[in-house]
Structure formats: structure tokens, C-alpha cells
């Protein structure tokens, strides 16, 4: 028997210590989450979506509980890219976190400018382009309704990034469109697709919002399965209501190379660390089996 090495995962050319990532917008600035467990044990920390200029966020209530889900319209509050690079990124890197910066823009020009500024920042592992904000129009973001919109944003980012910084495209778990959208963004240069974000929904007062949490998990899982079936070479990160290690296992079994933990962190800030630790045990067992 040989001793199992770390269960590394290759994603978009990066070597990660495991397949568990945080989902954008569910890990705070990183500091809050780090209180419950070291960030360097996670595959990567995905930031909340960062825009070119600071955004205060939307009106209250921003998040409402619904059976098995959360309906949310935070308006993506964030300090803007410059402030993020000056204050939040250095701290994350110092903690040893692998940082994937989620970005959101109101135009292709803004996506390009975000890519330029991120490209100059040392330490960014990858960029995740948020192409699936469920209230994009209402919040003034670049509206991604058609696959070619998504491809446009990915190309705009790609063009202005130095080589070696991969782009992940985060897509809506819309089972009718996800394969076509995935194919288009991969053709446009995305290194991987993140399948699963909030589904378009409404807050009780009618404002546009997104629905996340266990309620969307079966839909996301179906989307991962569809993309895997149609695009066998695509690298897929599964997301959407993954709350337990068994949930994560089913996404990995469906063909995802990694998973993102979002809403579950809001319910239990230790969930991602726990799922990562339990999957590491699986991986160690697998290695043992292979090598014995």
C-alpha cells in the first residue's frame, strides 16, 4: 500500500487541492468564512462578483427564505475592482487561498477593462465571468439572454487577459439552453463552464430576483449531465444547492470536475470545509484501491 498523496484536481490548467470551491457571493470577503476554517484547504475561493465601480447593492429585503431555497436580489454589492485589488485580494492570498475572481460588467467594454486590471494583479488564479445574474437587466448589467451575448463577454475578457489566467464562464441552469451556451462560450475561449447559478425568480413584492438553494439542485444536476453528454471534453464545475457530501458526489459522478458550495454556506459556514474533508477521504480511498 502506498500513502495517498493530496487528492489534487486539475481545473482549467490549475492544480487545486481538492474539488470544493466556494460559490460567488456566498463567502463574504473571505475573512468571515476563514473564521470557521482555513481557506487554503478549499480548492479555491471564488469572490463575490466584482464590478468596475463600487456598487452599494439594492433595496431591502434583499433575501427571502422560501421552502428549500433563498430568493435573492442583493444587487451585487462590492467595493469595485480597485478597492478589491488593494484590500481584499492581498488578504486572501496571504491566507494561502487560491483566488478565482468573479466579475460582472454592464457592457463589453467594462468586461474588457475588468480583465485588464485583473491581468495586472499578481496572484489571481482564474476569472469567473458571471453570465447568469438573474436580475441582470434590473441591476444594469450586460444582459446575457442569448448564447452569443455570453460568448461576447467571454471574448472581451479573454482578449485582455495575459495567457495563463483561465476564464470560467458561469451559466444559468436552464436545461433547454445550457448545452448551446456552454458550447458557444467554450468556443469563445472559456477554459471551463460553471453550470448552475440562481434561476430567475421574484421576491414576494415582485422585484426580479434569483432562486438558489436545494430547490434548484436537481435542475443543475440535469444541466451538468446534459453538458457532459453533449460535450465530453468540456470541463464542468457543478453548482446549485449542493449542501451535503452526497450532493457533491452526485455532481462529480455526473461529470463535474469540481463543485461550488453556495447557499449551504449561508446556513452552515463550515459546510464547504466539511464536504472538502469528506471528499478527500473518498479520494484517498480511491488511490489506495488503485495502488493496491
Amino acid at each position: 500500500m502506498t500513502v495517498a498523496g493530496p487528492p489534487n484536481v486539475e481545473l482549467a490548467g490549475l492544480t487545486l487541492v481538492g474539488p470544493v470551491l466556494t460559490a460567488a457571493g456566498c463567502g463574504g470577503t473571505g475573512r468571515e468564512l476563514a473564521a470557521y476554517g482555513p481557506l487554503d484547504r478549499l480548492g479555491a475561493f471564488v469572490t463575490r462578483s466584482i464590478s468596475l465601480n463600487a456598487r452599494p447593492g439594492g433595496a431591502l429585503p434583499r433575501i427571502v427564505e422560501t421552502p428549500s431555497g433563498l430568493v435573492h436580489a442583493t444587487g451585487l454589492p462590492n467595493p469595485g475592482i480597485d478597492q478589491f485589488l488593494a484590500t481584499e485580494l492581498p488578504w486572501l492570498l496571504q491566507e494561502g487561498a487560491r483566488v478565482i475572481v468573479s466579475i460582472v460588467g454592464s457592457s463589453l467594454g467594462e468586461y474588457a477593462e475588468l480583465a485588464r486590471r485583473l491581468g495586472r494583479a499578481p496572484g489571481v488564479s482564474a476569472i469567473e465571468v458571471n453570465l447568469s445574474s438573474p436580475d441582470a437587466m434590473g441591476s444594469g448589467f450586460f444582459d446575457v439572454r442569448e448564447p452569443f451575448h455570453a460568448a461576447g463577454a467571454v471574448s472581451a475578457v479573454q482578449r485582455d487577459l495575459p495567457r495563463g489566467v483561465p476564464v470560467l464562464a458561469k451559466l444559468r441552469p436552464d436545461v433547454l439552453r445550457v448545452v448551446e451556451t456552454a458550447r458557444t462560450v467554450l468556443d469563445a475561449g472559456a477554459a471551463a463552464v460553471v453550470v448552475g447559478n440562481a434561476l430567475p425568480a421574484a421576491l414576494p413584492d415582485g422585484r426580479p430576483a434569483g432562486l438558489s438553494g436545494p430547490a434548484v439542485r436537481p435542475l443543475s444536476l440535469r444541466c451538468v449531465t446534459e453538458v457532459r453528454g453533449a460535450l465530453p471534453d468540456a470541463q464542468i464545475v457543478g453548482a446549485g444547492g449542493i449542501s451535503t457530501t452526497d450532493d457533491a458526489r452526485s455532481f462529480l459522478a455526473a461529470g463535474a470536475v469540481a463543485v461550488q458550495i453556495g447557499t449551504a454556506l449561508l446556513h452552515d459556514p463550515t459546510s464547504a470545509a466539511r464536504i472538502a474533508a469528506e471528499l478527500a477521504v473518498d479520494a484517498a480511498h480511491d488511490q489506495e484501491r488503485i495502488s493496491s
Partner: protein
Amino acid sequence: MTTAPVVQAAGRLAPLHVRGELLAARRVGAYHHLTLAAPGIPARFRPGTFVALSVGETHLARRAFWIHQVKPMGGYGATIQIVVAPVGVGTRWLADLGVGATLEVTGPLGRPFALPKEPVSCVLIGEEYAAAPLFPLAERLRERGCRVSMVVAGRDEAHLLSTLEAKRSARSVTVVTRDGSIGHKGEVADVVADVLRREEAAVVYGVGTVPSLHAVAAAAEEHGAWSQTAIEQPLTCATGLCHGCAVPVVGEDGAPRLARACADGPVFRGDRVRWNEVAT
């Protein structure tokens, strides 16, 4: 004004997420007083911090409760006590929980009350169950030689925390009820200015509804006292992760900002909150 006469104690320990156990439940007036074993949390407690509890299997949002007391209970070491007002699905679930039940507890969360550097006169104002964190606060202030007065307010007598205990904690206690069933008839706003004057208050601590806290902050400003207000807002994660709990404040640089009620608060300097814009 010069530098603040109140300071945040240094070296706060990170919160914990633990499996807790309900050790005792007691009904007092309109409330349920729950004693929980929550390993590690009592030692980290500072007045003004709270715990987040998970309720039921399918409710994703956490429910927040002030830590009312930290005290030893046979066999369990230190325990925490919370006061639950059953108002909705989660709080009713907690109120019906049987002794011995386990539940997930995260805490202590949030920024606690800042304490005065000097032994000054302090007025502590709490409404209904939200007076809970003022009792341990009174104890810490008295240990520092501060003169402590309390105002406990509520809709009626059943919605007041123990006035007897308040009398043990404070030099003077003013009781205010909306229906006049005990004490003064009225609201916090009706009595706060008088109490601050009478007690020559240097620091005012308030916890309760937004209109009352607004009145407390305004009266403090008028009187020339410092105010520390603890705000309740609907929370989702309660841990600073989701950015769902915005409170409009004025930053140290004077610029308007949105702070997180759970992580940047729940205690804010009263003169830093843009009260007219806070969701009620």
C-alpha cells in the same frame, strides 16, 4: 467631538459553529427562556453579541438571538441563555423544542457593545426581549465602576424582561409600557431625554425597535452623550457572508455606506446610523 470615550475591547475570538443542546426551557411572561449547551461559545461571549440558530430541516435562513446570560450549569460547564419571542415559524419551532434536543448554534456573532474607558454614568435602554443583552452589559459596566441605570420598555408587563433583575443590575430602573399596565405609560421616546438628563449620562446603550433606537440616538446627541445602538434586521446567514442585511450608515470618512447588520453591527454608534433610511 474628541476621541470616543468608549472602546472596543481588543482580541475578540472568532465565532464557532457547534452542535448545541437544549438543556432547559422556561416560560416567563410572553417569552421562552432557553438554556443551551454550546461548547466554546460562552467563553467568547461579550455583551451585545448574538447566536444564530438553525431551525427545522428545510429553513435555510438562520434565526438570531441575543445572548442573555452565560452561566455554569451542573455537568455542562458554561451555558448560554436566550430569550425567544414566538412570532413566526422558526421562533415557534424553538419554543416547542423539547429539552435534550440538539440544534446548530453559531456564535458569538457580531460586534459587541463598546465599553467606556472611565467609570462614567451609563443608561441602558432595552425594549421587550431585546433588553436581553443589557443585563450582562450592566454587570461589565459595574465591574468598571460605572453608574448604571436602566430603562425597560414593552407593550405590556408580559413583554418585559424581569424588572426585579433589572433592579439588581442597576442603580435606578425606569419601566415603560405602552398600555400602562406597569410603570410609565408610553414609549421609550417619551422618557429617554428625561432619563439622560437625570442620570447625567455620558454613554447610552440601546437595543430594540428602529424608531426607539432612533429616539435614543437623537436624545443622546442632544444631551451630548455617546450612544451605542444594537439593531435587529432580518438576517439570512448572520455571519457576514451574504450581504443581505444592509444598514445605512455614515463611514468614518463621513461618506454614506451600507454596512452589514450582522458582521459590521449589530451594535453601531448611534450617530453613525442614517436612521431615516433604516428598514423597519
